[in-house]
C-alpha cells in the first residue's frame, strides 16, 4: 500500500509543487508589504493567500480525480492495473494519499493564515483570539472558540472534503466502468456526482441543529466518513468486477 501511495504522490507532485510555489510567492509579497508597512500590498496579498488556500485544497482533490480518470482511461493505467494489486488496494492508496494531502494542506494553510493574521493584528495592537471569536460569531452565533468546537469543525471539514472527493471518484468509476469507451461518459459522471451529493447532503442535513456544536459537527463528520467508506468500497468493487483499461 505504501508503495502505491508513493507513486500516487509522485503523480500528483507537480500540481502540489506549483501550489506551494504560488503560495510562497504570495507569502513573500505579503511579508514585504507587512515589513514595509505597505497596507495595499499586504491587504491584497492576504486576500490572494486566502483565495489560494480555499482553492488549493479543491485543486488537490480535483487533481487526484484527474489522475484516477487518466489511470482508467489512458494507457498509463496499465502501469497500475497489470501489477498484482487489487482494486481495493489501488483505490485505497489513492484515497489515503488524497486524504492525507488534503489534511496536510489544510493544516499548512490554517497555520499560515493564523500566523499572517497574528502579524496584522499586532500592527493594529489587537488580540488575535478576540478577533477570531468575533469573526466566527458573525458567521454563526453558536460558534465560540473552544478546543472541542475547533476540533469538531476541523473534523467535519476534513470529512466533508474527503467525502466530496470519494463521491467524485465513485461517479467517475461508475461511468468509466459501465460505459467503457463512450466519449460522453464524463457527462454521466458529472450528473452522478451532482445526484450523489444531493443525496448525501440530504442525509447529513437530517442531523438536528438544536444539539451542541460539537455533537452536530461530530455526527455530520462521522456520517461523511461512513459515506466515504461505503462509496470507497462500492467503487473498488465496481473496478474489480467491471473495469477494463
Amino acid at each position, binding site marked *: 500500500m505504501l508503495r502505491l501511495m508513493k*507513486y500516487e504522490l*509522485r503523480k500528483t507532485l507537480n500540481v502540489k509543487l506549483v501550489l506551494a510555489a504560488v503560495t510562497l510567492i504570495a507569502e513573500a509579497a505579503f511579508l514585504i508589504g507587512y515589513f514595509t508597512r505597505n497596507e495595499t500590498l499586504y491587504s491584497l496579498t492576504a486576500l490572494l493567500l486566502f483565495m489560494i488556500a480555499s482553492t488549493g485544497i479543491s485543486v488537490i482533490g480535483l487533481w487526484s480525480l484527474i489522475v484516477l480518470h487518466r489511470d482508467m482511461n489512458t*494507457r*498509463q*493505467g*496499465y*502501469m497500475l492495473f*497489470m*501489477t498484482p494489486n487489487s482494486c481495493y488496494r489501488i483505490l485505497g492508496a489513492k484515497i489515503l494519499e488524497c486524504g492525507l494531502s488534503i489534511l496536510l494542506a489544510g493544516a499548512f494553510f490554517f497555520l499560515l493564515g493564523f500566523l499572517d493574521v497574528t502579524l496584522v493584528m499586532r500592527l493594529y495592537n489587537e488580540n488575535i483570539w478576540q478577533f477570531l471569536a468575533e469573526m466566527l460569531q458573525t458567521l454563526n452565533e453558536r460558534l465560540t472558540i473552544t478546543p472541542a468546537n475547533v476540533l469538531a469543525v476541523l473534523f467535519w471539514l476534513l470529512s466533508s472534503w474527503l467525502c466530496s472527493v470519494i463521491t467524485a471518484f465513485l461517479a467517475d468509476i461508475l461511468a468509466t466502468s459501465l460505459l467503457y469507451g463512450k466519449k460522453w461518459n464524463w457527462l454521466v459522471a458529472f450528473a452522478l456526482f451532482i445526484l450523489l451529493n444531493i443525496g448525501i447532503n440530504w442525509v447529513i442535513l437530517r442531523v438536528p441543529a438544536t444539539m451542541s456544536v460539537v455533537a452536530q459537527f461530530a455526527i455530520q463528520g462521522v456520517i461523511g466518513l461512513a459515506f466515504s467508506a461505503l462509496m470507497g468500497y462500492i467503487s473498488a468493487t465496481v473496478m474489480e468486477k467491471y473495469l*477494463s483499461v
Partner: protein
Amino acid sequence: MLESRELTKKFGAKTAVDQVTMKLEAGHIYAMLGPNGSGKTTWMKMAAGLIIPTSGEVLFEDKPVSLESRAHVAYMSTEPYFYAWMTIRDAGKYYADFFEDFSMEKYSEMLKSMELEEELKIRTLSSGMVAKMKIALTLSRDAKVYMLDEPFNGIDLLARDEIRKAILTAAVPEKLLLLSSHLVEEMEAIADRAVFIRNGRLVEVRDLEEMRETDGVSMADRYREIFGHAEVNG
C-alpha cells in the same frame, strides 16, 4: 499453462474476440498471427487481466486469471504506457517495487547491451528505443508467461536483431512466450507454434515443425492461405 475457454469480448456492437477456446503450453514460443483488428491484442489484455471478458474465461495454471496470476504473467503492451515523468531507471524501479520476480541487475545489463542510458526520460526516446526498453523491462522479470504484443513494431533491423536475441534467451522449457506481430517472416525465425486468429475467431493453433512436415508449408504460406488477400506487412 494458459488457456481460454469460450472467451468473448464485445465492445458495443463489435465483437473483438469471439468464443476463443485454446490451450497454450509451457516450453513453446507461440506466434499470434492475424490482420489488424483480428482480436490478438484484446485476447492478450484479457489474459493479462486488463480487460474483463464479456463471457468465457482465461485460465492460468488451471485457475482463472487473478491478482496471483498477474505476479507470474509478464505482459508488454504495444502502446507506450509509462508515466510522463519517468526515466528508464524509474521504470525499472517501478517494476522492482511491484513485481517480486523483477531483477534490476538483469534490467541494467539488458539496457547496457541495448545501449540505452538509464537516466534518459522515456518521453524523449525514439519509438525504437522505447521498444527495446519495453522488452528489457518485461524480460527482466522471471515470469512464467511472457506476452509481447507487437515487439517489433516500428523498429529498425539492428534493433530487431537485439530484441530477437533477448526473446530467444528468455525462452526456456518451463516458460511460455506468446508474441503477436504482423511481421510473419520475422516471427517464423523465433516461434515454434502459431495461433491464427481471424475476425476475433480462432482459426487454428499449429506446431510449425509438424506443419512444415505434413503440409509442406511455412508459417508465411499458411498465413497467406488463411487470410487470403489480407494485408501482410513485412
